[in-house]
């Protein structure tokens, strides 16, 4: 049995933790606070960590840290400006393709950020982090049936939002 050292177990998933927190909070500063808080909790609970899947375990802790934060500060969940931050352009694309790609990325990002958090988080965990329904159910603490209906409804809303948004200008 290999040693379960905190650094080797948790830190490799720091990017995933931050990405999830960033999509929950929708801004860098809050996401950093949530992840730092989560890591302190993870260290505290580490001796009771039995499960093999450190990434899903860390997601659960990130979510608790975030939830704790918004329940202490009512209104913070959906408040706050969405900070504008563009993705680095892909150098392999020609200028027109690059513009189109930036345009699309901005549209998708804004549509996803506008989605209620219940839908947003299951979509991020499924589509971006690639978790299974069972893993998502464990992180979010809802039955698998609820995960499925949230995913379906979230995707329907996104489809509608992106179709509506397509002919318009990209948000800056």
């Amino acid at each position, binding site marked *: 049995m290999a040693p*379960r050292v905190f*650094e080797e177990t948790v*830190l*490799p998933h720091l990017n995933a933790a931050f*990405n999830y927190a960033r999509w929950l909070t929708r801004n860098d500063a809050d996401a950093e606070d949530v992840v*730092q808080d989560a*890591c302190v909790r993870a260290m505290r609970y580490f001796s009771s960590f039995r499960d093999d899947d450190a990434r899903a375990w860390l997601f659960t802790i990130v979510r608790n840290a975030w939830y704790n934060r918004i329940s202490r500060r009512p209104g913070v969940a959906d408040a706050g400006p969405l900070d504008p931050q563009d993705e680095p352009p892909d150098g392999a694309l020609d200028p027109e393709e690059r513009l189109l790609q930036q345009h699309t990325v901005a549209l998708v990002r804004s549509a996803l950020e506008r989605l209620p958090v219940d839908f947003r988080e299951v979509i991020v965990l499924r589509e*971006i982090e*690639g978790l299974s329904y069972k893993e998502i159910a464990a992180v979010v603490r809802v039955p698998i049936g609820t995960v*499925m209906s949230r995913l379906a409804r979230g995707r329907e809303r996104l489809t509608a939002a992106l179709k509506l948004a397509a002919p318009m200008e990209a948000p800056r």
Partner: protein
Amino acid sequence: MSCEQVERDLDAYLDRELNAESATAIRDHFGRCAACRRQAAERETLSRLIRSAPYYSAPDHLRARVMAQTTRRRSVRRAIGWAVAAVLTVSVGGGMSLLQLASSRGDAIAEEAVNSHVRAMMANHLFDVRSTDQHTVKPWFQGKLDFSPPVADLSSIGFPLVGGRLDYLRGRPVAALVYQRQQHTINVFVAPEEAGMPGLNDALAQASVRSVRGFHVHHWNHGGMSFWAVSDLNDAELTRFSRALAAP
């Protein structure tokens, strides 16, 4: 199967969460129904779009802060952990005398493969040769290894090759091939089946799957080579990848 049933199960089908029987029924239905096919294509487009959304990596100052915290909380328990690690490393180096069973040998290699994967990701040293061209990556290993690893490009099914490097497993130089799946990195360690990897041929001849600290590890032997694929990618997609690589 009716259109209503297909619509109900479409998400689970596209997420590969549906049982084989229902999945076949849906595929049969697609053959007959253009409307449902269109619906599925639309959902797939949406998935691709969502995956183009930004992936937010932890900023360096946050990583540094968390690591500083970890060091401060260094505990006796952790010191013991390191001592165990040291003992294990010594015994691994000394010819695996502690680990007798093929399965624990496999576990130890899986563990080591995950360590290599993590080390490469954290030290930002994924590539000695960075190229999406298999005809650049394969010759690069010439003269660096006493075998020639098979290098396949799987970009047609969404797993582009991004490069390779020299790595070590069981104290033996191996080829590490790096593939990308959206934001996930896959490391594939390749070495000849026999030399330096005893015991892998019998009990582990069949493809095997393990989960180590949140990473999935797939192992199989093919064409005289041993393969270890490591990633934080979900199991279904890593299985698809491993199958494609094992049966080009």
